């Protein structure tokens, strides 16, 4: 890792940290459970690292570790997004089905 890339990575980290703070602190308590599963899904981004390890045929050990990592990270991503969506679908402002009886 070169000098410049390191510095740039630190900038990206610092800015992302601020942004994370700003964005997350605006999520209302109502949506904290979906938030947990959504960030859980996003943390499956380590899939990106796993894919290269699994497909690059550096050596057998790497390939096996990579394969397991891809499987695990995919569980995380797919499961996380699906359950988040399942939860969010349940949040409704008003129900059209419930008649306003008197």
């Amino acid at each position: 890792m070169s000098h410049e890339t390191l510095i740039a990575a630190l900038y990206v980290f610092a800015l992302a940290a601020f942004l994370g703070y700003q964005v997350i602190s605006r999520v209302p308590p109502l949506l904290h459970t979906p938030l947990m599963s959504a960030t859980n899904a996003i943390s499956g981004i380590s899939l990106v690292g796993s894919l290269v390890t699994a497909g690059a045929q550096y050596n057998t050990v790497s390939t096996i570790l990579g394969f397991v990592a891809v499987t695990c990270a995919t569980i995380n991503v797919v499961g996380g997004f699906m359950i988040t969506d399942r939860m969010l679908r349940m949040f409704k402002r008003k129900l059209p089905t419930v008649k306003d009886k008197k």
Partner: protein
Amino acid sequence: MTNYLVEFAYLIASILFILGLKGLSHPESARRGMVLAEVGMLMAIIGTLLHRDIVSYEWIIAGLLIGSTIGAAMSYWVPMTAMPQRTALSHAFGAFAAALVGISEYYRHGAELGSFTMGAIGFEVMLGAITTTGSLVAFAKLQGLTRGTPVVYKGQNIFNMSLLVFTIGIFIYLLIDPSASPVFYMMTGLAFLFGVLLVMPIGAADMPVVMSLLNSYAGLAAAATGFAISNNVLIIAGTLDGFSGFILSVLMCKAMNRSMTNVLFGAFGSDSSTAQIESGTEGTMREVNVDDVAIQLAYAKQVIFVPGYGMATAQAQHTVRELANVLESKGVTVKYAIHPVAGRMPGHMNVLLAEANVPYSSLYELEQINHEFPSTDVAVVIGANDVVNPDARDNAQSPIAGMPILEVDRARSVIVLKRGKGKGFAGIENPLFYKSVTGMLYGDAKDSLARLTQAVQHA
């Protein structure tokens, strides 16, 4: 050229993740936000598949297929009440992936690593390993596979501390001599062990805080991977995650009025912490029966439901909704008061009630509803305990003193639905149950509510 394309895909993916989380600031925009985040993930994956190092796709495809199947199955069949466990398990998978990538990076480059990259890989593997086993223990406790109570022994904190210091020492050694591979594997092993030791002494009830922290670690592990392989999308997504988890755990601690240290090292809920001063818990509890309560409810102007952990264990959310429907059809105004730490997960009650089709405009937060109790005819406490404990407000000696509560005791009448004399998560007595305004309706919350619904219909 491909390289530019890939980098561009990563940049767009990062932006989409941010937009996705921004969407969660409102329930109206939340689903759209998640679609953006999903597209972002897809772009990151497709971009990566174009990476020039990738030569064979069979293992990748196999992994993707198996993972998707398991992930989809898990999210499809898990009941809403088991969300805490599912999240813990999912953390374990994500963190394990990060740890494995780190190990394989070390395996490949070993001695050639510069200290900076070694540092990044070290962080990645350690955070990944701790999170993996920590989350598995959390899962086991929440699922009831092991005892939920804290496992404590004398000198535990000192032992853990020494182990931590030792591990950090090893890590520093590695930074100086990255080629010492046995040391690396020892460090990895210790980190896996450390995850177990860290979570064992924490009670099941404190798991939500721990899980948020583990979420944070999983994110930071991903960010460290990003530093190790110079990939910005990993850094951004990981950092966003890291902060999200951290903020949630701080919010939870605040809502419980406890410090993070106390949660992590206090072994709250273990037998040693029961010495305490209670007030107003002499006297008798007044038991009431379903028919009396039904009459009260049917002729009330406004009823506020206060759900707690008991509603989750009884899976009573649908029955609550049915009772509310019947009451509303009789012209009663029904509101739901949601305490920020009711249940066992931030937002727990909100999801359950949303599942039962309660519109979120009827859910009120603590600050919005507390002033309404004095003008409320009946407050119905459904399996909540600590979050309505007036001692938190009145008794400075109480272990939960200072925790904000839902002030149901100010209502004209309070009905508490619980099975018996069981204590809440904090393990302390609740003077609310002894107040003259309070009536106790014993039984499983779901049963009681079903019987109430029946009775109100005929009242």
